[in-house]
């Protein structure tokens, strides 16, 4: 795991990250929490403030950039990942954070999303998923559930939503995680992990839109339902949930099964979470859908998958170094003349 030297001279506080711009999200918007958690966590990351760069697309989420007193670019719809690729490739020294929403990342920016995952630049990709288009005032998004009634689907959406973690895993993401706006501590932990992970870290944040899709994720944070509807993954720990921590998930071959302690199962029988196991990560990502024998599974939060593999900008750099040692820099005059010249007197 990478450890970054802490620059004590450059140390800063959460307050230093406030750009002073008026924050213009709607009252009660989940984005406020995300901004707060990011501002809380950043001073602890050991990165000088001037090395942070935020690149955002378009949408409510993407205004985030303006509120952070770091370097930042509020760009165009869907293209933040592509711009961030250029930023990181040209200056690997920067800590690059992409901020996007479900429409920006998965619809108009879908192509850049999957290719960023595949290429594995060492950047962090935060997608504020509220399952709705908010800045354009309420149309269904690629993560809205089938049947969703919105202004563009007055009789219900006929579309199947993306399952973002499954999409990311399918695109070869090296880090796939989920957290939610109403669980600050959890989000802080995930943000730190995302930063530490070398490679593209995909962080899906369930974010409440109080105006156009209020309460979409409350089941995962409300006291009455949270224990039954959400499961919090921890590396090396069994998959346990339920009101009295009395339910667990075990694997029957490749099929997840919900078991109860009252039926004689102990933690030894349960599935132990292993972030590096891609097969299991794929299964966890599919808890999103009710596809296993019609059983309703709790929604997983935490690091679903994390495994390091070569990162783009380093491979690029190594290759350049190899070419330098093999062939050396070509002098400009040699480039200008080419291999074959002739003289005219």
């Amino acid at each position: 795991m990478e450890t970054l030297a802490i620059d004590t001279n450059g140390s800063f506080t959460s307050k230093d990250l406030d750009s002073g711009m008026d924050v213009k999200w709607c009252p009660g918007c989940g984005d406020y929490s995300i901004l707060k958690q990011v501002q809380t966590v950043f001073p602890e990351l050991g990165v000088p403030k001037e090395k942070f760069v935020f690149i955002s697309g378009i949408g409510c989420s993407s205004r985030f950039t303006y509120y952070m007193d770091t370097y930042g670019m509020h760009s165009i719809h869907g293209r933040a990942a592509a711009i961030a690729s250029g930023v990181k490739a040209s200056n690997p020294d920067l800590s690059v954070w992409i901020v996007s929403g479900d429409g920006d990342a998965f619809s108009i920016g879908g192509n850049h999303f999957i290719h960023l995952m595949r290429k594995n630049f060492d950047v962090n990709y935060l997608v504020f998923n509220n399952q709705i288009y908010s800045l354009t005032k309420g149309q269904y998004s690629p993560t809205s559930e089938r049947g969703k009634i919105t202004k563009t689907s007055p009789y219900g959406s006929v579309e199947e939503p993306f399952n973002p973690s499954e999409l990311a895993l399918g695109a070869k993401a090296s880090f796939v995680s989920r957290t939610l706006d109403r669980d600050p501590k959890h989000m802080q932990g995930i943000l730190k992990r995302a930063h530490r992970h070398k490679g593209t870290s995909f962080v899906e944040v369930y974010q409440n839109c109080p105006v156009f899709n209020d309460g979409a994720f409350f089941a995962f944070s409300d006291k009455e339902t949270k224990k039954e509807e959400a499961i919090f993954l921890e590396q090396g720990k069994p998959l346990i949930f339920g009101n009295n921590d009395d339910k667990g998930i075990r694997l029957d071959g490749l099929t997840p099964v919900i078991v109860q302690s009252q039926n004689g199962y102990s933690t030894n029988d349960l599935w132990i979470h292993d972030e590096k196991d891609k097969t299991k990560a794929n299964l966890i990502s599919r808890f999103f859908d009710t596809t296993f024998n019609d059983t309703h599974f709790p929604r997983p939060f935490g690091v679903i998958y994390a495994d390091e593999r070569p990162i783009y900008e380093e491979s690029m750099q190594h290759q350049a170094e190899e070419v330098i040692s093999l062939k050396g820099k070509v002098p400009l005059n040699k480039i200008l003349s080419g291999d074959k010249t002739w003289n005219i007197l």
Partner: protein
Amino acid sequence: MNVLQERKEKISKEVDNIVIRFSGDSGDGMQLTGMQFTDTAAFFGNDLSTFPDYPSEIRAPIGTVAGVSGFQVNIGSSEIYTPGDNYDVIIAMNAAALKVDLPRLKKGGIIVANLQGFDKKNLLLAKYPEGVNPLEDTSLENYIVHKVDITKHTKECLADSGLGIKDIERSKNMFVLGLLFWMFDKPLDSTVRFIKEKFAKKPAIAEANIKTLNAGWNYGDNTEIFTTQYKVAPAKLPPGTYRNISGNHATAIGLLAASEKSGLPLFLGSYPITPATDILHDLAKYKANNVKTFQAEDEIAAVCSAIGASYTGNLAVTTTSGPGLALKTEALGLATMLELPLVVVNVQRGGPSTGLPTKTEQADLLMAMHGRHGESPLPVLAASSPSDCFETIYEACRIAIEHMTPVIFLSDGYIANGSEPWRFPTDDQLREIDVKFLKEPNGDNGEVFPYRRNEFLVRPWIKPGTKGLEHRIGGLEKENKTGNVSYDALNHEIMTRLRSEKINNIQYFIPDAKPDSGEENAAIAVLGWGSTYGAIKTAVKELLQEGLSVAHIHLRYIHPFPKNLGELLLGYDKVLIPEMNMGQLLQLIKAAYLIPATGLSKVQGLPFTTNEIKEKIIELLKA
């Protein structure tokens, strides 16, 4: 047979220039054969101009008209500016090739026909009527026809080589080349060196190719059917060291030169597209020269990655052709708003849509000028010849960096793939490029003003990572100076005007327009831009020699125009604007200067011939 006696009968004929068209199936190796001939002629000191003309399919149906791949070269003992209107010689590897190229063969021109390519099957594929063989009827009686059984001679020559029939077949273009070298009295050694290098790891193939090359030469020298050798004396070019260069390669090394002279790393974000891809190929080789090439997932990601790289302080470039430029336009709006340097290379091709991907056109000028949403002016430059791509792209980089703006550089398929000798500059002859990054707060009280401008309205370039200068930029309208988001009505007008004026100011940093040939205040000015240079130059030169009052003005800077252009054009009675489009520069000129200019349009996927331009000039002079 007494060889010496035989040789006496060969005649040597001195000619000023000669246009040769190599023509065959896509797989016949005509491009390579043509390039080898070109290299040898260049070393010998001829001036020349080439024009590769090939189908968009990699291997189109063999033997058909659709599959014909041509390479045209014009070599001369005086200055050459075009690949030539009509051919003196056609090398026709099959019947389809002859069918395609015969209409442009000069009366009395030479046809070297590969006999096997005119068998029943090939004649049928080329859609000659049943029983018709142009080599056997009277249809070619106005030409000198050499029927050569190239396949048979190649097979005979390589009978003992131990090579398979496929490898032997592949060598037949070397027989053609050898024969051509004899016909035009050129040495073989350059091509021999090339073969040895190319097949360094396959000595048997190298030997076979060299043997066939010599056999071709000997065939010309020894057989009775070839009676004449044509000599094109070395051209009287300005003294210096020369190389051969294509437009795309000139563009690539122009970018390398600008990177080195500005001290900025070069970043190319690109997605492969004909005919621009060569530039990405070329630059991908220079990883040791502080160059990063990024093959993006699409055209949009290509330009966006370049914007990202520009933001961090690189010389950032994206290369494309028309359809790709269309996809990049939203991002160009962003770059205009951000006011970051960015060089956009558009190697134009026939459009719209997929159009004619391997053919040339100049129909993206208005897209380059206006093809963005909102008021988003940016500089547009166009290269006029293969070697001019170097200077023009270098200028595009300089303007982008020194004026903090995206710049569109226009080339086209004709000059991108065409080549010519180039008296290349050395490192120390290149103009300096002035790069300044802001390192300290630029406000009087320690504030950072990302949009505080210098006297020419250029904002500072600030690299992320610079301590104390943290700030946000973005696509939303900015408040003047601070760069903060602003929806203020008057501020938007101020910013729109500032962005426009900044681009207009560039006219003070570029040379004035002047006639390339002919005089100011002549009866007619032919105003061109881009790759029409060679045809206009030759047409005007010939008419000047005939004593006509004509001048040629050629634009490299299309936006902004050189500041004296209007005044210069007003000095002529008439202005003619030839373009490979429906009159796009014509619109711009008329709108800018309200002069009654006349257009000359050609949209055939082919460059102008000299004659087409001459005829129009004469017509206008008489009118």
